[in-house]
């Protein structure tokens, strides 16, 4: 029997989604918010870099969902910067059309915990996100 996600009601887990596709960003934001999460969407690499470079911002983040092909950079560049600064502190899930073996391996090598290809199944993505959130330490 399925239940509501373990942490969503107890406290606000913040999810940051970096994706320039408004159609997907919107449905992800609505879906996660409906499950009780706080969500922030960022649609380009430059803004994402600025946001993630600030430790105060990152302190509140419980999960980062990252697209690869951003208008101004490859998401892997962002991931590399993020991992150098916050290695293993926050799980990163890559969500991308680029899903050949070499792409998935690159993403995992750069530090992503999981790599899902687009187009995605929304309920499956939600379950993966919940699983990642429940396996990492809670944010105070």
């Amino acid at each position: 029997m399925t239940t509501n996600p373990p942490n969503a009601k107890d406290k606000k887990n913040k999810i940051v989604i970096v994706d320039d596709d408004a159609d997907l960003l919107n449905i992800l934001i609505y879906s996660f918010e409906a499950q009780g999460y706080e969500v922030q969407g960022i649609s380009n690499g430059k803004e994402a870099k600025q946001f993630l470079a600030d430790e105060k911002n990152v302190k509140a983040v419980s999960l980062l969902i990252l697209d690869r092909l951003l208008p101004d950079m490859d998401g892997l560049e962002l991931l590399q910067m993020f991992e150098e600064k916050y290695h293993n502190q926050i799980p990163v899930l890559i969500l991308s059309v680029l899903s050949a073996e070499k792409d998935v391996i690159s993403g995992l090598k750069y530090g992503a915990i999981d790599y899902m290809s687009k187009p995605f199944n929304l309920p499956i993505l939600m379950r993966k996100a919940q699983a990642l959130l429940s396996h990492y330490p809670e944010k105070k």
Partner: protein
Amino acid sequence: MNESNEKLKNILLHSKEVYKHSIPEKMKRLQDLVNHLHERFDEETLRSLRLEVHKLAGNAGTYGYMPVSKICKQFDEELLLMIQNLKSIPNDPNWSNNFDAYLNKIKEGFLDDNQPS
């Protein structure tokens, strides 16, 4: 069905309706970019076309249009190859010949409304 799944189902249904209404605008955008490229080769427009096709490859299937995602993935790969071999394009008079065929397939894919959700 529990409350959480029910909310998700409703969000998906509503979002699909919004997406469906955005299809004509998406097709127009693609057609405008292709028409521009038929007139002359332009790296920026080619990259813009690739970005739009790439987005469709990524989102169409999520909204129930899986054939459109498949066609766009193929088109995306072809456009990427062109971008990686830009120098050869101006010398090839047929370089954009199959763009319209791709657009027609995408259009047909969107018209097939009986997509499994």
